[in-house]
């Protein structure tokens, strides 16, 4: 059975309100009345609606201001404005503010329903368009990798080509950028999951044990080697071995790994024989391996063997366009049975955060917020983001540092200060405008 569409009707007059609600209910919509902008915003924060009718003249927050606030909470929802007696100027203001359309009072039932149907048709087309783009892989996702930034799109376009080859891949990027996800995506694209994907963290296992894990051992090779073990390279058998934290591998094991990569064969611990391997090697590190080579900590020949296809995952702070799609995916991952939304102000806060722990930290924030908040629409105030520590100066310190250099243009300083005030007011533009002593329009203009 199709879900009943929910419509919010915001008008301060009880007769107008009741008539629209009753006409909509008669047509099978689930319509609810609201008498003020403030009340409607509170409801939109806690409930989901498919469309909203808004009277222009409301006590307190007026209809035009309300459109902006509604779109902060739920940007995709169509807002239809009801305006009195052909005030074209007001109607134009409403459309500029983002209204889907406007209706003149007294609203004719036919016009009311037609306008609503048009809004839903338009919304469905937009949705369909979005899904088609996703299907064409021009969207925000490739396998489990998510991102809308140019950097991620470039990586998406590389994945198919990488998957077709058998060359070694070296993925670099800060901790939490999704190196393992990228490795799994490359593997899945090549093998369609019918071959093994074997991830191993080189920093988590002592070198002696790691050697046996990777290359295998024969029975009696060392104390405790009660049985023959094949080793992960052999077990992969046409699949992928993902060597995470390769930069932490000890020198001796680096030498042995180099030999495996050169010979495409392993010699199990305690054995004199070599076993050929058929495994794709993907390595990853958050270290600068060139620096490690110069410091004599990483073998140059191993680096060049691994770095046949280099892929760099930039930190999240350098690709804020990815934060929205990632946050939405994490919301779905952690509460698929009860999908919730982030308000525009919450997304703004997430986009401005520094994310030293990258996507992993973002996922933690989303998971923590979902656990501690019941809101249907998560606002900026519900997000629980850890404050930056002393090693990472906060935004205001950054502004002051830039000013002290006496080389930063005023416009740039102003932009930094506005961004910091917005961060501290959790993206609340009204509050930020008050702090800055400017009106909201000026804030928008200067913030652009």
């Amino acid at each position: 059975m199709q879900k009943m569409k929910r419509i919010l009707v915001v008008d301060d007059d009880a007769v107008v309100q009741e008539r629209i609600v009753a006409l909509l209910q008669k047509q099978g919509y689930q319509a609810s009345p609201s008498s003020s902008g403030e009340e409607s915003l509170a409801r939109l924060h806690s409930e989901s609606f498919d469309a909203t009718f808004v009277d222009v003249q409301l006590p307190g927050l007026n209809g035009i201001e309300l459109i902006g606030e509604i779109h902060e909470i739920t940007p995709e929802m169509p807002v239809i404005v009801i305006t009195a007696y052909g005030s074209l100027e007001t109607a134009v203001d409403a459309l500029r503010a983002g209204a889907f359309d406007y209706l003149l009072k007294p609203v004719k039932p036919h016009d009311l329903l037609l306008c609503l149907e048009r809004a839903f048709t338009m919304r469905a087309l937009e949705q369909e368009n979005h899904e088609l783009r996703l299907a064409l892989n021009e969207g925000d996702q490739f396998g489990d990798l998510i991102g809308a930034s140019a950097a991620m799109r470039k990586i998406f376009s590389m994945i198919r080509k990488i998957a077709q080859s058998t060359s070694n891949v070296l993925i670099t990027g800060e901790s939490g950028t999704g190196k393992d996800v990228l490795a799994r995506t490359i593997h899945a694209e090549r093998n369609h999951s019918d071959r093994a994907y074997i991830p191993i963290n080189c920093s988590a296992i002592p070198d002696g044990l790691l050697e046996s894990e990777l290359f295998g051992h024969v029975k009696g090779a060392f104390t405790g080697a009660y049985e023959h073990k094949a080793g992960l390279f052999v077990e992969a058998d046409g699949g992928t071995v993902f060597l995470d934290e390769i930069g932490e591998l000890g020198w001796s094991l680096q030498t042995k790994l180099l030999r495996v990569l050169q010979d495409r064969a392993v010699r199990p611990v305690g054995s004199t024989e070599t076993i050929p391997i058929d495994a794709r090697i993907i390595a990853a590190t958050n270290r600068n391996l060139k620096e490690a080579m110069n410091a004599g900590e990483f073998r140059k020949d191993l680096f060049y063997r691994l770095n046949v296809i280099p892929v760099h995952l930039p930190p999240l702070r350098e690709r804020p366009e990815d934060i929205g799609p990632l946050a939405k995916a994490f919301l779905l991952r952690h509460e698929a049975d009860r999908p919730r939304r982030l308000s525009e102000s919450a997304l703004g806060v997430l986009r401005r955060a520094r994310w030293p722990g990258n996507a992993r930290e973002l996922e933690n924030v989303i998971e923590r917020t979902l656990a501690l908040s019941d809101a249907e629409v998560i606002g900026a105030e519900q997000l629980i983001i850890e404050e930056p520590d002393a090693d990472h100066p906060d935004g205001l310190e950054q502004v002051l540092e830039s000013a002290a250099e006496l080389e930063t243009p005023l416009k740039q300083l102003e932009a930094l200060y506005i961004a910091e005030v917005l961060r501290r007011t959790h993206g609340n533009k009204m509050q930020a405008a008050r702090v800055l002593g400017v009106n909201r329009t000026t804030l928008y203009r200067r913030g652009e």
Partner: protein
Amino acid sequence: MNRVRRALDPKQRSSVHVVNEDELLANVSGDVHILKRLTVIFSQSSENDLDALRSAIDQADLIEIQRLSHKMMGALGDLAAPAALAALVDLRARAVAADVDALSGHYERVRSAVERVHEVLADIVQARSLQEP
């Protein structure tokens, strides 16, 4: 019964000017139940609005007069009540022009027009209820 007859007799009822019945029914998609609900709501809300309007006029609060007039105009538009609507448009225009002296006179015209709307609405509802199967 007298009222019902009056409502059914177009000659005795100069009601088109008070409430345009055809337009009113079109506004509720011909649904008498919606019409009844609106009539009840209007009888309550208009009393409150008129009292608030009187109080705003006594205090010469021109902004509040404009706001309340606008609010009532919305309801009277929905109820297809052109005479009361026109009276409110005049009152609002007086408030916009800050013609404080004229406000009380205009208010009385509004009150009387709204009372007529109540009467005619009651007639229409009663007549339509009798016609229902």
